[in-house]
């Protein structure tokens, strides 16, 4: 049934003095899902950019169905039936589903105009193949991110895709949406398409992958088939060592007084939410995407306006109307989308780290550059940030290091309350472990931490207590031994 459709062999690629890929092999079969794993910077993206014609390999060969081909530009890849779906989806929200699918390749009618009836028919046929619940005339603006992804898949199918590469497609999806996506992937596999699936998530890979290729530091770290796969083995291959203590041990007691006390918060998306966090405690905020986790966090932080509700920090009522007020009261908020909401990619690591405390490192408004350097040096040591220097631009750092820079910015305010929204999204395993370590360290120092996460194992592994949100309300609370993935899911989805 499954034939080798793609062979990339002996692929090498250097950027200046950096070896990005060294003798990497990848074989994809039709009717199979091939997972490509590795830490950030391992070379997954570079390999896929070579496959899609964005980069040219320095050495190596690509064969498509046994015949060597040269992919000099992205159009060549599309021509060969190779399509990529990036994390950032290329959807125009102002256009309809059909227009998005046939963007640039719309069927032409007489006089060169677009043949709309045919475009709709063709789009409907593609959507049927995926089993979507929306039609070709739906405006893209009314669809969710998960639906957009399906539109992108339909577009790939419109290009007669034989090889479909998906780069961390579930990063922005809820569990339920991910489940839908997996069904679509199963369907495509049954239809004979070879799928290359890039992901960090073990559960997904075990659910989907027929074969797994692991890269580490630009080299092939190993190949596995479904039968031989185990998470421990994979983690070992990815980081080159076994991670015995993935989550640091939680302490069970010894929490301080109530540090953050949220009572009856209301907004247009939140209905009367209350929660308390003690000093030294890590509270998980769980729920499906859209349940109001981020919305509640932004209300506490003063980023959005609340209609009602009372906030106490360390036993005193505080009035917080803006992030500025929140920061003054010692509340930090690490946003979920670090590039859009957190980082200044064109500024240096130092500037990014110091942005909240510039006035403490300035005299009469003039920057004290020596003090800033000290601040950076301390942060770099404490968080094990890998940057060439404090002057390195944050845009050039890896995802994990960017996240640590952002975390350093919030540590610099010496927070009493720290809200972390998806603190490990898009960071590699090594950085994940570091971030968990820092969270526990902060908690041990008496910081009250709120951790929002879509990854249930993370919530269960890190948090002392969990508040589950559903449709903007608190659906329940779990503590101690009650904290478990199933219990959380039950609360998150109960009707």
């Amino acid at each position, binding site marked *: 049934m499954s034939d080798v459709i793609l062979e990339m062999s002996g692929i090498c690629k250097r*950027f*200046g003095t950096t070896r990005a890929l060294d003798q990497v092999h990848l074989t994809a079969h039709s009717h199979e899902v091939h997972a490509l794993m590795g830490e950030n910077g391992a070379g997954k993206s570079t390999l896929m*950019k070579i496959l899609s014609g*964005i*980069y*040219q390999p320095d050495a190596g060969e690509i064969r498509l169905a046994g015949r060597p081909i040269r992919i000099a530009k992205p159009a060549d890849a599309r021509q060969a039936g190779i399509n990529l779906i990036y994390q950032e989806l290329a959807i125009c929200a102002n256009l309809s589903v059909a227009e998005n699918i046939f963007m640039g390749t719309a069927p032409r009618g007489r006089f060169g105009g677009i043949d709309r009836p045919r475009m709709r028919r063709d789009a409907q046929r593609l959507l049927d193949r995926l089993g979507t619940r929306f039609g070709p005339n739906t405006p893209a603006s009314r669809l969710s991110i998960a639906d957009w992804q399906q539109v992108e898949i339909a577009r790939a199918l419109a290009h007669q895709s034989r090889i479909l590469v998906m780069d961390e497609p579930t990063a922005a999806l809820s569990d339920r949406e991910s489940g839908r996506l997996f069904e679509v992937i199963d369907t495509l596999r049954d239809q004979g398409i070879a799928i290359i699936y890039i992901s960090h998530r073990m559960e997904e890979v075990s659910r989907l992958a027929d074969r797994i290729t692991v890269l580490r530091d630009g080299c092939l770290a190993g190949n596995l088939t479904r039968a031989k796969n185990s998470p421990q083995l994979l983690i070992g291959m990815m980081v080159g060592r076994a991670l015995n203590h993935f989550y640091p041990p939680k302490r069970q007691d010894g929490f301080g007084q109530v540090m953050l006390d949220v009572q009856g918060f209301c907004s247009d998306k939140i209905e009367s939410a209350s929660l308390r966090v003690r000093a030294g405690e890590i509270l998980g905020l769980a729920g499906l995407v859209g349940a109001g986790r981020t919305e509640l966090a932004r209300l506490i*932080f003063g*980023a959005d306006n609340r209609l009602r509700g009372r906030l106490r920090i360390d036993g005193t009522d505080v009035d917080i109307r*803006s*992030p*500025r007020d*929140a*920061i*003054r009261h010692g509340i930090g*908020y690490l*946003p979920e989308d670090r590039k*859009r*909401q*957190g*980082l*200044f*990619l*064109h*500024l*240096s690591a*130092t*500037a990014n780290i110091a*942005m*909240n405390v*510039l*006035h403490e490192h*300035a005299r009469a*408004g*003039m*920057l004290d550059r020596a003090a800033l350097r000290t601040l950076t040096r301390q942060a770099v040591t404490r968080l094990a940030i890998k940057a*060439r*220097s404090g*002057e*390195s*631009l944050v*845009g*050039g750092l890896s995802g994990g290091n960017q996240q640590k820079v952002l975390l350093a*910015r919030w540590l610099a305010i010496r927070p009493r309350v720290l809200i972390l929204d998806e603190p490990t999204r898009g960071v590699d395993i090594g950085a994940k472990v570091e971030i968990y370590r820092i969270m526990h360290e902060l908690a041990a120092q008496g910081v009250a931490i709120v951790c929002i996460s879509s990854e249930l194992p993370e919530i269960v592994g890190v948090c002392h207590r969990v508040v589950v949100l559903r449709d903007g309300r608190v659906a329940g609370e779990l503590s101690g031994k009650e904290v478990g993935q199933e219990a959380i899911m039950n609360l998150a989805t109960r009707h």
Partner: protein
Amino acid sequence: MPSLANDSRAAGAVPSPRMSALARLGMLPILIVLYLGFYLLTLYFSEDGNTHFLTLDNTLNILRQTSINLVLASGMTFVILTAGIDLSVGSILAVSAVLGMLTSLPDHNQALSLPVFVLSGLAMGLINGTMVAFLGINPFVVTLGTMTALRGAAYLLADGSAILNSDIPAFEWLGNGSLLGVPWLVWIAALVVTASWFILKRTVLGLHIYAVGGNPHAAYLTGIRVGLVLLFVYAINGLFAGLAGAMSASRLYGASGNWGTGYELDAIAAVVLGGTSLSGGIGSIWGTAVGALIIGVMNNGLTILGVSSFWQYVAIGVVIVLATILDKWRLKPSDGQ
């Protein structure tokens, strides 16, 4: 992803070793090539085998001719760094020049002229800034409006004619005097550039300007008062435009409603030539200075060569576009990244 090359021009960036020395210099090589090119051209076309182009006199001349645009472009750099634009600086210059000249007339107190020039500019900048920062109106629209309205105001204040006064002891020095052999106009421009550099690179406010321009939402979540930062950039831009009004009024002993027409475009051209991104967050004041000098050198060189002013427009327009293309091509990393 932002390209590596663009990054090097960001605030506080030390260029990576991988960046060529060329990339670090920005548009400076183009300025030098143009300067030497015009020297050779004027030499080649001169009748007696001599040229005045490279003399100290002519160099000071170039700097003096560039000074007003340099002051305007410095202010414009602040605004463009926040991803904004200010089309009204030419009109602000006119209003400021007319108001200052009116104050200089015999029945007024000429000592107040200089403050009037500068403070009227500041006031107009604050109007722009308030609308952009606190009413949330698009800067292009706001300043298109004030550009038109203030132009009308300048004509009205000047009563449709020119206000001439050759007896301006209070500020004659500004446009016509010199210090240590260098015109005051050049000193003022240099001072404005240096002060702008200092604010942008050495102060908390400067870093906030880059932050607001690079990522306004992140800036808000960092507790930066985004509105105040925006108000500041339009205010200082107005202030500099007022100063430029003083410079041109003093230089020409007069002002009229059509003063400074089109100056906003020269200022924007200098900023863009200098590598500042119109989408905000990337750029430097040194780039702007080089950009303004490129335009100045071309104007001067072409005039010496006897090229008609119509062709000068064409040439400068072509150079702006070509230099920017060259810059993009030159800074393009070898392979992606």
